[in-house]
């Protein structure tokens, strides 16, 4: 079996930028993109920048949770809700 992935060029790599960073590619294409950015400095820099951006976003906005008061209110409304399924 041939282990070498079908090579991708800069444009093809760029088209899969976020799919690559989001882990949405098939293993073969992921391998091909990884091989490209490993040897292409401009693409490597772009991917690195975008990865930094996504990590930054995740760190800043994922922390917030529902207020405890809201959770209590919801639990209460479930307790008191009637047993009838909703009618459309």
């Amino acid at each position, binding site marked *: 079996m041939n282990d070498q992935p079908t090579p991708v060029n800069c444009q093809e790599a760029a088209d899969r930028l976020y799919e690559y960073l989001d882990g949405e590619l098939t293993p073969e294409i992921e391998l091909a993109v990884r091989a490209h950015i490993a040897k292409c400095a401009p693409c490597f820099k772009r991917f690195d920048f975008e990865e930094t951006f996504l990590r930054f976003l*995740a760190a800043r*906005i994922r922390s917030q949770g529902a*207020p405890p008061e809201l959770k209590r209110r*919801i639990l209460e*409304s479930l307790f008191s809700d009637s*047993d009838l399924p909703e009618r459309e």
Partner: protein
Amino acid sequence: MSQSHDERRRGFEREALPHLDAVYRVALRLSGDPAQAEDLAQETMLKAFRSWHQYQQGTNARAWLLTILRHTFINAYRQKKNRPASVDLSEIEEFTVFHDVQDTDPEGTFFDQIIDDEVLRAIDSLPDEFRETVVLSDVESLSYAEIAEVTGVPVGTVKSRLYRGRQILQRQLYEYAVEMGYLRRSAT
């Protein structure tokens, strides 16, 4: 087969309630208002509880809840608010932020100086379809397939919305960073 109220509540508490944080966070970003987000989250959870018999045990409870949230938001809230789409979409197709910073700050260190509130403000200013896609992906880490399920569009549409939404967001944050003097505007 009918379940008792207690059984239903236990199942719901076990499988749905752990996703309340996600429901609230998405509600907050969809509505842009904490009080409205609480109402939306509560309404969503109550609707979900009442239609709990329609939920297939063991399937994706989070995506199911977020789908209910999205419908609730669209039906009840979207008309009431008027959030102007202030972003020029044509501009972002030309150059990426990376193109602007590749000589001055290719590693994106300027991002670190941007305060959380500014990030949220930038997200909140995205046009609806980009905002919901970015929030589901970058706030809640849903897969493209899950986002497609929740928003009712093909995966290809999710991809393009995510690309454009993230690029618009980057552009806004870049402009903010330049304005604040964290970064000088590139000459290119």
